C-alpha cells in the first residue's frame, strides 16, 4: 500500500509548466498543499463530489494544459455518474488519480464502498474510461507520470493507499474567491 503524502509530493516535484492540479476536498487537498504552495493548484475544501466535473470543465476549456486531479475514494464515490460524463465527453488532457484508502479517514476512518465490493478501476472501465489501472506500490510512480504528461486521456488511476491520518496542511487561503483567482492567474500568465 502506498504512503500517499510522499507519493503525491513525488509526483508534484519537478512538475512541468503545463500542469495544473486540482484536489478534491479533505485529505487530497492537504496532500497537494504539502508539496508546497503553488498558484497552479486549486484545492476543494467543500462541495464534495464536484472535483471531477470541475476538472472536466477546466480540461475542456484549456486543451493545451495537462489537468491532474487528485481526489479520494469518498469524493469519487459521491459522483460516480461524473465518471460516465467524463468518458462520454472525453478530454485527452485529463488525468484523475484516486487516492483510495478505502475509508473516510477525516471523519473517523469509517470504511467506504471500496473497502467492500466496489472497484473504482472497473467502475471507470465500465463507464468507458479505458485508460484505467490500479497501483499498490509507489514504485509505479514513473507509470503515473507518463500517464499524466504523455498518454491520451481521460485516464483514471486508482492508487491504493494506507488508511492513516496525516497532518493537515492548509492552503494559502480558505477563501474560495482568493484561491480561484490566484489559480486563474496561473492560467492567464
Amino acid at each position, binding site marked *: 500500500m502506498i504512503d500517499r503524502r510522499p507519493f503525491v509530493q513525488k509526483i508534484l516535484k519537478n512538475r512541468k509548466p503545463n500542469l495544473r492540479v*486540482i484536489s478534491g476536498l479533505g485529505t487530497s487537498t492537504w496532500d497537494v498543499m504539502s508539496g508546497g504552495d503553488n498558484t497552479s493548484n*486549486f484545492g*476543494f475544501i*467543500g*462541495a*464534495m*463530489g*464536484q*472535483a*471531477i*466535473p*470541475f*476538472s*472536466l*470543465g*477546466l*480540461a*475542456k*476549456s*484549456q486543451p493545451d494544459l495537462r489537468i491532474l486531479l487528485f481526489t479520494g475514494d469518498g469524493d469519487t464515490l459521491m*459522483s460516480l*455518474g*461524473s465518471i*460516465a*460524463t467524463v468518458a*462520454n*465527453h472525453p478530454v485527452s488532457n485529463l488525468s484523475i488519480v484516486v487516492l483510495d484508502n478505502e475509508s473516510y479517514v477525516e471523519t473517523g476512518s469509517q470504511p467506504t464502498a471500496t473497502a467492500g465490493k466496489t472497484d473504482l478501476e472497473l467502475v471507470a472501465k465500465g463507464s468507458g474510461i479505458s485508460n484505467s489501472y490500479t497501483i499498490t506500490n509507489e514504485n509505479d510512480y514513473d507509470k503515473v507520470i507518463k500517464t499524466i504528461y504523455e498518454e491520451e486521456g481521460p485516464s483514471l488511476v486508482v492508487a491504493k493507499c494506507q488508511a492513516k491520518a496525516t497532518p493537515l496542511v492548509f492552503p494559502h487561503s480558505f*477563501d*474560495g*474567491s482568493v*484561491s*480561484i483567482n490566484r*489559480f*486563474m492567474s496561473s*492560467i*492567464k500568465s
Partner: protein
Amino acid sequence: MTATIKDWRDDIYKVFKDLDITMVSHVPDAGHTPLINLCEKDNEIDVVTLTTEQDGVGLSCGAYAGGRKSALLMQSSGVGNCINALALPNICRIPFLTLVSMRGEWGEFIPWQVPMGLGTPKVLEAMDVKIFRADYKEEVGSTVDAAARFAFNTNRSAAVLLSQKMIGAKQFKNG
C-alpha cells in the same frame, strides 16, 4: 406554432451567442429540447449531457476557471440535486447561470412534480441564487440576457425560472 412565430428558445440561443456562452450542460427536459438542438448544431458550443444536475455546477465552474462561460439547463426537479454543489460558485464568487424549466405549477398533471416545483424558488434563495422569472414568451430573451449579465458581471449565481404556463403543461394519456 406557425413558421412565422419565432420560438422563444431562439431568443435564449441568441443570448448565448451574444455573451459568448460556449458550454451548455444539461439533464434534458422537453422544454429545453429545441434549445439543446440549436446548441448541438453549433460547432462553437460544447453540449455536455450530465448524469445529475449537480455535476453541471462543477462543470460550469471549471469551465469558467479555464476562461469559458457556460450555462446549465435543467428541469425544476433537478434544482434540489444541486444544493450543496451551489456552495462552489458561491464561496469562489464564480459566475453561475442556470435556466430552469418549471414543472409542478401551472396545470401540472403529475403529482410527483409538485413538491420540487414548489421547493425550487425556496431552494435557490436558500443558496443565495438570484432568481429571474419569465412567464411570457416575449420576455424570455430579455430575462435570460439580464440574468446572464447579472451572473457574469457581478460574479454571482443566477437562475431563470421558465414558467410552465409558457412552456405548456403536458397532459398525459393512459394507454
